């Protein structure tokens, strides 16, 4: 009787130990050292939506209901969808131009191509991966459609083919991977008429961004969105207004996979805890399974 009670407590103790979050120090970033990226200068964007058009063509997406040169779509705040991997939104700056017309800010959004992406860490089959060239790549042949990547993404970017009953895909910016492999910048960066999108190595882009912030401090707020957000992203932004007023989400600076991966590996590395638990339970079974003394359980 005493042994079994002790056994029960040991069982509780062992299981509790199994689920303790471990210190995050053991976690190592898997980010590529100097990936490609894009620097978006929000102050340069004129909201022409040519980037949306280029994206549509390169990725062979269906033709949109409203033409790309129709500015009326800017009246509503849009999110990337399964048929539009990048969208431009308009935000009021409160400033007026020489003819007393309000001057808007235009913000292009798409997958940020995180350095340590939450979606890649979450993906059950590894259908999502971070490539050396910076792309967060989606391999549909591995995807089962669990949508955990969408749950995990802190920028709330991936979209889904909800109306395809059997072969839906997760949809997001591809970084025009095929073009990247040919040494060409992504479609949106190539077409941008105002050079609001600069393509290059992430380190170089950070230097360019810092230089612009230093040279015209009045034009920019002192923040490079994506330098530290979510542990750093391949896409970077500089802007003339605080980022929270431009629809950017406030995202923690630590890489999102850090905590979960630390827990997973501390608990289940080499399957040590299941093995220990199996041993403890096996021992309890041997000790506890003696013939019952026939005593009734307390009520």
């Amino acid at each position, binding site marked *: 009787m005493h042994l*079994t009670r002790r*056994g029960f407590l040991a*069982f*509780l103790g062992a*299981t509790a130990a*199994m*689920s*303790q*979050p471990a210190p995050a120090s053991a976690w190592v970033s898997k980010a590529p050292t100097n990936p490609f990226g894009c620097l978006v200068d929000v102050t340069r964007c004129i909201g022409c939506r040519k980037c949306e058009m280029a994206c549509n063509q390169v990725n062979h997406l269906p033709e949109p209901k409203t033409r790309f040169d129709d500015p009326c779509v800017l009246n509503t705040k849009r*999110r990337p*969808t*399964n048929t539009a991997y990048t969208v431009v939104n308009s935000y009021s700056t409160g400033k007026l131009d020489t003819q007393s017309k309000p001057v808007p800010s235009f913000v292009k959004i798409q997958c940020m191509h995180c350095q340590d992406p*939450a979606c890649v*860490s*979450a*993906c*059950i*089959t590894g*259908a999502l991966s971070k490539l050396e060239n910076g792309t967060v790549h989606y391999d549909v042949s*591995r995807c*089962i*459609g*669990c*949508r*955990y990547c*969408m*749950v*995990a993404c802190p920028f*709330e970017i*991936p979209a*889904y*083919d*909800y*109306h*395809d*009953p*059997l*072969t*839906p895909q997760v949809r997001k910016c591809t970084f025009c991977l095929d073009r990247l492999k040919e040494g060409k910048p992504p479609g949106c960066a190539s077409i941008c008429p105002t050079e609001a999108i600069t393509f290059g190595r992430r380190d170089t882009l950070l230097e360019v961004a810092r230089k612009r912030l230093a040279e015209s401090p009045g034009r920019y707020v002192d923040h490079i969105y994506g330098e530290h957000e979510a542990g750093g992203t391949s896409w970077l932004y500089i802007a003339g207004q605080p980022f929270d007023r431009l629809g950017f*989400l406030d*995202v923690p600076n630590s890489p999102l*996979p850090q*905590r*979960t*991966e630390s*827990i*997973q590996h501390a*608990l289940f590395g080499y399957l040590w*805890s*299941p093995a220990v*638990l*199996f041993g403890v*339970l096996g021992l*309890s*079974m041997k000790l*506890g*399974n003696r013939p*019952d003394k026939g005593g009734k*359980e307390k*009520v």
Partner: protein
Amino acid sequence: MHTQARPIGRPFWTPGVLVMIGFMAAGGLALLSRYTGGLGFATNLTDATPWGLWIGIDVASGVALAAGGFTTAALAHIFGRHAYEAVTRPALLTAALGYTFVAFGVFVDIGRSWAIWKPMLYQNYNSALFEVAMCVMTYVTVLWIEMVPIVAERFGSRFRLLGWLDRTLGKFMWVFIILGVVLSCMHQSSLGTLLVIAPTKLDPLWYTPFMPLLFLLSAISVGYPMVIVETTIATTSLKLDGEMEVLTPLSRFTILTLGLYLAVKIADLVMRGQLGRAFAGSPASLSFLVELFIGGVVPWFMLLSSKVRRSRRALFVVASCIVGGVLLNRINVFVVGFSPRTAAHPYSPAIGEILVTLGAAATIMFLYRVFVSLTPVLSARNMEEVSR
């Protein structure tokens, strides 16, 4: 007092069973709409809220509420409390059916159902979901292996292969019993790890790095209350003795397990400085308070009274509250508290999602009835014998 477990010879086609079949048919139609129109047609899921009722109830709650299986197995088979053998078989059956329908829920929810086998080929060891999937898959197998002796007891002599399987597996049954407990501890906690990766989306009332521990502790504490609820319903519906001489002592363990869960949950909330948020009056905070008090604190205090533990009706109410509390916790974490900032409107389930979930629950109850009618699962005496 128990007799041997035996098939229960009550009339099968009762009004209750017909109602279940009605729900199953409606669920089947909803399922058809999901596989013709897609998830977008049958559900209210969006890009911002990609998980809904099916993950919150069919999967997450299903796993938690099937915890009666491993907790009773641990008690009776591993820690040698043979007095509880009487409830291990029904708890095992519930777990086997419950987990089978967890797998079914996943199958329906994932966009590419036909690709459900792929995690076996392509593994991502960083993914908590991968671990949950592997454990659930293995555990379903283990549960049905544990069911073999029960089915073989009735049909083993008629089907030679079944008898042989029973004798062969019987030698290793202790391995499967322990494995069942180990696998349960692993994936019950890992279900809690799932949303640790989404700190910006889950309400701070529930978001804590201790979610894995809380999920495990709550699963352990809901195990026996679930056994009490299902035993009481089954014995009432089948006109059997209520087995209070097993359920009453069983409920005493819940004082310890539920007490531990609630202590960790409240301490975590206080240490994270989110206690005030619970009383903010928002819909999420109300849902949290119902979960914590009606589903936890109040039934815990009631369990302290031996009068409550001895009363069949009171114990049923208390156990139902605890079951409801853990169910609500899973719904809160995966649905109510999951509030991405880009969601145009909060998610609420579509009629198709509700029908599939109800259909699955009805199918579980229907199959439970089939199994207890055909195989020796229940050992409670018939009411007529008790009164005699």
